[in-house]
């Protein structure tokens, strides 16, 4: 083991090698310069004596740490590094490795950082370069850790690829500058996506034109702050419109309410004319409108597909309208069919059905959603968009489709 410098024979005249780093700490600038001079003379090293006190002290300490007694040179101080880089059998003359460097390398390797460049540099034995490189690396690690910490709570939904690329980049603190730039870009992209989601939610007809205008500005990443302010303002107006339109749709006199010029015969739909409810398609969505799955018992042509997705859009927009009542069955009449929307705690079912809405439907959907959500509650609570994590959804939606088919055979 290398002896501690402070444990040497104190009767001898004090030389730099007789002092340990602790006693150096107590020296004045003048004493330090004197000490450096002696060290240069004794050890044959070069020290910048005009440097600031802190730098001078650091340089002296480095030389004190690195220098090893000739008889101790047989001892391989660089074992720690060899362990790290796995070159124990190296035949080339071993470079001296201060403990603090080996410890740092071990820590950084354990944290998953790539330290190859530093190890290569250690081989050169160039003290100044090594010290600078280690200091820079340490600084970069600190900054990288800061980014990593922020990434822990970063919402990567919809930006998975960019997120993974950045995570890869962060394994080497040498990439800090690039990673930082990428992180800033990622944050902007997140903001843009969030703003887009906020705009997508504003589906009221009164908002349509302004939403389109604001969406067009989403491409400019540099003006997102300005755009965000405008969207915040629009959000307040949206809330007001949501309320007003909800009331208007309830209280505005419809043609039915207006007095008829002459008495019309009472409109009654003959029983059984429309026919029993036939559920053709079931869509399962997450509560925020994200698509989970589509279930049907028939082949769907391309023409029908377009119509189907138009119906899905109607259902989705209805979800965000003031008329929508959560947890209850909402039926929208469209031509000869109904678009039925009903939500659970985390999911929403949109059914496209022909014929009269069966009064049992609400109860059946509630039961199916309750059971399904109970089974997948852990994944549904904070669903990350991964459909495969919702294992029970397929089974329950098929069951719902089957139940609705059975219901169609029963008399209303």
């Amino acid at each position, binding site marked *: 083991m290398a002896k501690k410098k402070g444990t040497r024979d104190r009767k001898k005249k004090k030389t730099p090698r007789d002092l340990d780093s602790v006693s150096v700490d107590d020296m004045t600038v003048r004493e330090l310069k004197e000490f450096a001079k002696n060290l240069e003379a004794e050890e044959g090293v070069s020290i910048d004596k005009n440097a600031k006190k802190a730098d001078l002290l650091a340089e002296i300490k480095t030389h004190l740490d690195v220098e090893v007694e000739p008889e101790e040179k047989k001892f391989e101080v660089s074992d720690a590094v060899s362990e790290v880089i796995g070159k124990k059998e190296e035949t080339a003359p071993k470079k001296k490795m201060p403990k603090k460097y080996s410890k740092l390398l071990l820590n950084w390797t354990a944290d998953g950082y790539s330290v190859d460049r530093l190890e290569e540099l250690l081989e050169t034995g160039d003290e100044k370069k090594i010290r600078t490189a280690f200091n820079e690396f340490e600084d970069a690690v600190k900054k990288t850790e800061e980014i990593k910490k922020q990434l822990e709570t970063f919402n990567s939904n919809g930006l998975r690829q960019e997120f993974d690329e950045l995570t890869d980049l962060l394994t080497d603190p040498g990439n800090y500058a690039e990673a930082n730039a990428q992180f800033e870009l990622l944050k902007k992209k997140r903001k843009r996506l969030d703003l887009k989601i906020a705009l997508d939610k504003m589906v009221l007809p009164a908002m349509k034109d302004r939403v389109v205008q604001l969406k067009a500005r989403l491409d400019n990443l540099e003006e997102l702050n300005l755009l965000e302010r405008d969207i915040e303002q629009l959000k307040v107006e949206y809330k007001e419109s949501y309320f*007003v339109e909800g009331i208007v749709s309830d*209280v*505005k006199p419809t043609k039915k309410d207006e007095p008829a010029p002459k008495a019309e015969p009472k409109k009654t739909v003959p029983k059984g004319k429309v026919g029993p409810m036939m559920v053709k398609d079931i869509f399962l969505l997450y509560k925020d409108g994200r698509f989970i799955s589509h279930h049907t018992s028939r082949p769907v042509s391309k023409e029908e597909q377009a119509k189907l997705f138009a119906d899905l859009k109607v259902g989705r927009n209805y979800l965000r309208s*003031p008329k929508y009542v959560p947890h209850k069955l909402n039926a929208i009449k469209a031509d000869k069919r109904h678009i039925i929307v009903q939500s659970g705690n985390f999911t929403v079912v949109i059914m496209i059905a022909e014929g009269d809405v069966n009064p049992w439907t609400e109860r059946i959907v509630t039961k199916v959603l309750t059971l399904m959500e109970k089974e997948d509650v852990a994944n549904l609570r904070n669903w990350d968009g991964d459909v495969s994590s919702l294992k029970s959804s397929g089974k329950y939606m098929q069951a719902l489709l089957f139940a609705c088919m059975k219901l169609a055979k029963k008399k209303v």
Partner: protein
Amino acid sequence: MNGDESPEQPQETGTDARIPTHIMGLDSILEGGVPKDYIVLICGHAGTMKSTVGYSIIYNGCKKDGLRSIYLTLEQSKQSILDHVEKLGMPSQGLDDLVVVDLARVRKDITVDKTKPQNVDWLKSIVGVLKNYKEKFGCECLVMDSLAALYALTTFKNPRGELFHFFEQIRDLGVTTFLISEMPTDREVYGLYGIEDFLSDGIIHLKVEQTSGGANLYLGVVKMRKTHHTREFMPLIYENGRFEVVRQ
């Protein structure tokens, strides 16, 4: 007054959570504010600043406590209200959680002929939309301005029963509600039907008293359930953008 509102901060937890009025001096009288989810009448004759007091409560609640609020106007237009409160030092800009809903405009658009039977149930409609709104955006406070305007939209067959039902539905929403009520000049009742006072959980009465030099505004807490409060009328002053009651 030291202007420090810290003793009047809302009590967030427990069953005694309160919504501060941020009217200086009043919150200490109300043991911290109006109990959460209560229905409170803010009543008085014309010109007693009922609407301004109502707006100021939710304005400060939104600004200082982050309460999401709705000011539902059935009488005055939104622009007229915003202009007025801005002049009094309560600008709405930047307050994303305070929404002024202009139903006065809707009323204008839809002329209601009270001589004809109506299919529209405004009370039910308002409660229904409020429920959906709360679920979608969240809402802790509501000011409905005014009860008289709401009554003008509705034909009550049985006011006692229907109003009881309406108040219960509002209470079920879990939103602290301030109902602006203009008192009839011919009777000393707090609402048009004389039953609003016992249907509500609290009554804040504003009145003007003539003096030789002019008129002074007074505020009195006539009723506030679950609260030990004084019933004296205190001068209400508005200075530097805020209301203050002065205890003599």
